[in-house]
């Protein structure tokens, strides 16, 4: 506004330095792009708001607001806003103490960490080989990896069950799930890491070769530290896949004490129960570790560690 008055005073008067930014900000806010972003933001956040409200409502019902029979249109509209009538931590307390939720959390943590470690170890070494060595079947192997990603994961359900549970006898065990998760995530991880390894200048390795370093030394002391951003992203992906996976876990794990969190959560809301409050509180508790992991890995997610290695 100030900008407008100043500029109207005449072309000779210099404009206030604020005029430009303010007007530009105003133009941004009242643009269709901004509206679109707001809408998209609402679409993403609205369900989350429901979960949070349910979790803190202290009750199990999906209806946060009891509408009278003759509710006005305004009241009905207001009921769409997910706000509990009272706030309570009761759902969290119950989930953590009355249910075996902590036990499931531990199961999930062990399985997910195991998956991340096993998956990264396999994916890093495989991706390095695919990136740097030429061997028969190299290109075909990469394509096969891609093809394997084109089938829905459910297709693998029966063969995996036969192999893991019946042949290996690894049903109802952490190890079985770790193996299955690590290996099904492998194609994606290998592609991801290979792409990053490809960007690391080969001269660095040649230089190390000339200095007498073995391939393993180069891989361990040079490539892995340089690929930290990619490894962080890939590790996060592995962890989250394992952490959130439901179908395989629900089939391989019969023993309630071995449930992972997604499987356990499911029993809050089933044919026989509809404890939406526990479900929502559990869901929030489940997301916390992933959020923490994300935050702690954030600095590695910033690529560019290899800048300065060579001059392009």
């Amino acid at each position, binding site marked *: 506004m100030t900008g407008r008055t100043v500029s109207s005073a005449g072309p000779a008067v210099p404009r206030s330095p604020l005029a430009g930014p303010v007007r530009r900000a105003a133009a941004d806010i009242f643009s269709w792009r901004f509206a679109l972003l707001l809408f998209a933001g609402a679409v993403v956040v609205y369900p989350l708001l429901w979960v949070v409200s349910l979790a803190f409502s202290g009750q199990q019902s999906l209806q946060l607001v009891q509408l009278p029979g003759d509710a006005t249109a305004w009241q009905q509209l207001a009921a769409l806003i997910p706000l509990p009538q009272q706030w309570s931590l009761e759902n969290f307390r119950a989930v953590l103490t009355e249910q075996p939720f902590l036990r499931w959390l531990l199961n999930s943590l062990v399985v997910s960490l195991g998956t991340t470690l096993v998956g990264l170890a396999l994916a890093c070494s495989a991706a390095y080989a695919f990136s740097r060595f030429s061997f028969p079947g190299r290109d075909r192997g990469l394509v096969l990896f891609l093809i394997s990603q084109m089938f829905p994961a459910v297709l693998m359900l029966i063969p995996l069950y036969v192999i893991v549970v019946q042949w290996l006898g690894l049903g109802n065990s952490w190890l079985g799930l770790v193996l299955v998760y690590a290996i099904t995530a492998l194609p994606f991880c290998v592609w991801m890491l290979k792409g990053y390894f490809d960007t690391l*200048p080969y*001269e*660095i390795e*040649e*230089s*190390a*070769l*000339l*200095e*007498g*370093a*073995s391939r393993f*030394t180069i891989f361990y*002391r*040079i490539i892995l*530290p*340089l690929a930290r951003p990619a490894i962080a992203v890939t590790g996060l992906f592995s962890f989250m896949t394992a952490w959130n996976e439901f179908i395989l876990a629900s089939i391989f794990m019969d023993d309630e004490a071995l449930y992972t969190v997604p499987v356990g959560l499911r029993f809050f809301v089933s044919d026989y129960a509809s404890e939406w409050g526990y479900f929502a509180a559990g869901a929030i508790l489940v997301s916390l570790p992933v959020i923490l992991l994300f935050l702690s890995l954030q600095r590695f997610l910033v690529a560019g*560690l*290899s*800048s*300065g*290695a*060579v*001059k*392009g």
Partner: protein
Amino acid sequence: MARIEFRRVVKQYPDSPPTVPGLDLSVRDGEFMVLVGPSGCGKSTTLRMIAGLESVTAGELWIGDRLVNRVPPGERDVAMVFQNYALYPHMTVFENMAFGLRVRREPQAQIRTKVERAAETLGLTGLLGRRPGQLSGGQCQRVALGRAMVRDPQVFLFDEPLSNLDAELRVQMRGNIGRLHREFATTSVYVTHDQVEAMTLGQRIAILNGGELMQVGTPMELYGDPDNVFVAGFMGSPPMNIVAVQNLGRALRNAVLEVPLAGLEGLPGELLLGLRPEKLEYAAAAPAHWPRLRAAIEMVETLGAEMLVHLGEGDTRMVARLPGLRPLAAGETIELAFDPRAAYLFDADSQRRIRLSQPVESAEPAL
């Protein structure tokens, strides 16, 4: 320290013509040899074969008294400086220089001494704790140099190490590299496409073209006594003028000049005449018996103390390097003269040098 010897060395990639069709070259113990040539001439491939980063398809490659065809790079005791430095970006300058020594499990105290000594020689002492990303290009290249030095290898290899530096730094680093070689006298092979670098650094220069060795010799041998048109045209800036001339038996002639020469009998009718730009002088000040040439000026490049005058007449193009005192303009015709002893003759077909059996200076002016 060691000599390096190529015996009929061939490098060929599958499904392509040989990059190096058969190289015979020996680098003497303690010598600074420069491999120079246009891009794609096989000079880098040759260097990488010495390093072991490229395999040898056929022939023998000797370092010292070891046949190294099948020796892995890490066991050849060679150190290499790369064009893009190839420093380890996640390690400090100290760690970069110590890496090779650590891999070889040298004692900690010894590593520290060696690295610090090299850092001092190269003026890197204050930078030992920094990472490559925090260094300038020149500093990076000095670290790369230091990393090679601390290992005290038998052979130093340089793969266009100065190409990424600006002109001023390049001169400075050239001085550094030259000084280091005088100090340590380690056998060195240096690849470049820059003939000034080759001339200033090389004790001997090997000129390669299309994988073939064109000539090996000291810088002045190559400049003053080129074996063929390629070498004549490659060394010197601006390069030697090569013009087609007709052999008249007692003289050579084309549109702009006529050079009376003895000893032309029996030579082909079409020859190439080579004249260095700096050997052309204003006719007015030149001895009367020197051959003259008259041509139109196409362009004048003024460099201050001197100017490069581009001449053209018909199909003949020449450059003269003249003192930059007179105002010359494009379109004018200029008369220049040259000492016939400074002229080179080449066979037009084989491009090889023709050395007249009779010394050129005995030629008498025909007119």
